[in-house]
């Protein structure tokens, strides 16, 4: 695999100055909280008094409804693939935020529905038992409530199929395409907020703010999920160049294209790939670059775990490729000015391989620890050895003993191998159990949490 290794661009990157970048997560979270406070203030300002229990229920319904409407926009925004989120905060972290806030929003929606209908039922003298009848009446009588009912139904469906146990039962593509219905659900539930929401009827400024919020989220989604990928793919016109088996079960796909170095991709990042081959058009999957991008060539390295990754082996050269990205924050920008330890578990080597090649640093600053089941499974080993020689970097591996015994990865063993480990930045990629184990060992060896950089797509 010498077609991809040792490019000039990669070598140039190793000489760059180290410029640590701060993640914008904290200011973003502060802005989110400020917005929530604004929404509560809107309610507070438009509610002079609460006379009785019935009004208390209705007002609780209003608060939950307002918060749900606000969060709904943010939940969609988190998946708009905005570069600041994907590349600076990290796709994995944003995806976890999305899952968390999505669940919370659905709970708020259900609370809003229940409280409001209960309040209306009480108002018309029906009591808690009449809540179903009241819901039917309200859907029939109030403006935009039919739409809202359908939208809420969709949200509940989407929430249901995203519950861990249910999600594992259905194919990823099915789950993904049902999940796209969220856009329809948000659109359908939007209108009743304005037409029946007291705060929007009383306060025209609130209406404007709501249009602004949903409008800008829509614009971001349209730009970054639709138009930007179209532009990217028209410009770079990527095709499969070759498929190479690295080790049993792990293949590399070489992708050619035009001016690929202009895509702004960095080592450690990934794209969402869609191969326009029969049976693969409908699904796109995230795979990390396993080498620094070259002007005419990209490479991904994939382990055959699911149907999609297994099918990659049979890709014909010349197959058109549709890519979205680059995404991911596990890049050189994460590190501070010190030595770096890269830890890879199994196929987690892919981003580590690219970082190993390009991370700025002098001879002796860089160490790569590669964990695999056996020496046979050490994919890309020859390349790694070549890079380590060229850069004066340390390369270590840990595999199971012939009897199947797992290697010792603990605070002590790490400290033995790297006595100054507590002065390293650590980049880590691997299966969740492995990552957790290494994380604890690193913490035990004195590495501060803020210097352990990790990407995990487990929810």
């Amino acid at each position, binding site marked *: 695999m010498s077609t991809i290794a040792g490019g000039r661009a990669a070598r140039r990157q190793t000489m760059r100055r180290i410029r640590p970048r701060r993640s914008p997560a904290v200011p973003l979270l502060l802005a989110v909280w400020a917005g929530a406070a604004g929404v509560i203030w809107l309610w*507070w300002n438009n509610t002079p*008094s609460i006379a009785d229990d019935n009004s208390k229920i209705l007002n609780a319904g209003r608060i939950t409804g307002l918060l749900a409407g606000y969060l709904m926009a943010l939940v969609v925004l988190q998946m708009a693939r905005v570069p600041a989120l994907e590349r600076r905060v990290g796709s994995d972290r944003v995806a976890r935020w999305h899952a*968390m806030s999505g669940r919370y929003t659905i*709970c708020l929606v259900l609370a809003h529905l229940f409280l409001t209908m209960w309040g*209306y039922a009480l108002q018309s003298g029906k009591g808690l038992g009449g809540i179903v009848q009241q819901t039917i009446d309200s859907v029939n009588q109030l403006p935009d409530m039919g739409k809202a009912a359908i939208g809420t139904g969709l949200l509940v469906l989407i929430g249901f199929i995203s519950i861990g146990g249910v999600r594992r039962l259905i194919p990823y593509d099915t789950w993904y395409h049902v999940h796209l219905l969220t856009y329809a659900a948000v659109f359908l539930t939007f209108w009743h907020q304005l037409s029946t929401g*007291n705060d929007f009827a*009383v306060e025209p400024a609130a209406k404007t703010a709501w249009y602004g919020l949903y409008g800008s989220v829509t614009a971001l989604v349209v730009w970054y999920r639709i138009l930007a990928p179209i532009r990217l793919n028209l410009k770079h016109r990527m095709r499969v160049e070759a498929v190479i088996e690295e080790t049993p079960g792990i293949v590399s796909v070489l992708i050619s294209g035009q001016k690929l170095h202009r895509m702004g991709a960095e080592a450690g990042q990934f794209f969402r790939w869609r191969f326009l081959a029969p049976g693969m058009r409908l699904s796109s999957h995230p795979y990390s670059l396993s080498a620094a991008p070259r002007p005419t060539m990209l490479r991904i390295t994939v382990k055959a775990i699911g149907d999609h990754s297994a099918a990659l082996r049979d890709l014909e050269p010349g197959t058109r490729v549709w890519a979205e990205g680059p995404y991911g924050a596990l890049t050189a920008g994460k590190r501070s000015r010190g030595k770096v330890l890269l830890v890879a578990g199994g196929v987690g080597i892919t981003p580590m391989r690219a970082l190993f090649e390009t991370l700025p640093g002098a001879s002796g600053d860089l160490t790569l620890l590669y964990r695999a089941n056996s020496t046979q499974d050490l994919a890309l080993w020859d390349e790694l050895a070549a890079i380590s020689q060229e850069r004066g970097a340390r390369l270590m591996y840990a595999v199971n003993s012939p009897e199947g015994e797992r290697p010792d990865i603990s605070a002590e063993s790490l400290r033995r191998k790297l006595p100054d480990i507590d002065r390293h930045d650590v980049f880590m990629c691997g299966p969740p159990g492995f990552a957790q184990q290494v994380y604890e060992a690193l913490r035990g060896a004195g590495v501060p949490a803020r210097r352990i950089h990790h990407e995990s797509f487990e929810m």
Partner: protein
Amino acid sequence: MKKSHPMRRVVLATAATVSGIVLLLSLKPASDPAAASAAGGAAPQQTAAGQESPQGGSASQTGSQSVTGNVAQTQYGPVQVRLTLTGDKITKAEAVQAPKGGTSDQKTALAIPKLNQEAVAAGSADIDAVSGATYTSGGYKQSLQSALDKAKAAGGTSGSSGAAGASSSPQAPAAQARIVTGNVAQTQYGPVQVRLTLTGDKITKAEAVQAPSGGTSTQKTALAIPKLNQEAVAAGSADIDTVSGATYTSGGYKQSLQSALDKAGG
């Protein structure tokens, strides 16, 4: 990478949300002095002593006095009207209480200012219901009537001419026939509008000015409307039976009939 317990997060989020909402709700006062002006759309220059002034007799006949009507309970909450009268004339009407919460807020915001204007213009409780806010309008009229009654009682003899109009008897002489047209009620098949002829309080004639037509609707209208007209005259109210096979038309008819009766001051 920190170890997180999903259940702990769920419990924390739920507890924080519930306690936050309960805190917000409990921080709001049970009644708000500014509510009257907010609901009535008028400045709160009236004193709270308004209700006592008729009994106290402090207000002279020519000076302005303020009277608060009884609370009228409606399906959506209480309605209470406060009037400012100069002599016998209503110079200002405002709602001290009005339905709140959910869509009621919106309806109140729409209906109360209209009702206030109507009350000042009519100088009596004989005002039109605001469509879409029938219950609130009904409650408003009740409370307005009671306020006028109080003012009349306090005003004594000199209030005879003006306040008489505000009493429950209709302004029109009993023997004279009146024609009242109800509001248009929209149904799925088209608009329905009812015109009544009243002698005193009695409906002497009911007819449909508008009714659904076209296709099977023409046939149904031909069957249903005469029956509904008869029923309206017989019942003397909007409490009439639906003609089977013409549910929507009957519903619209009843709505328009009710609005006509409301207009007639029933």
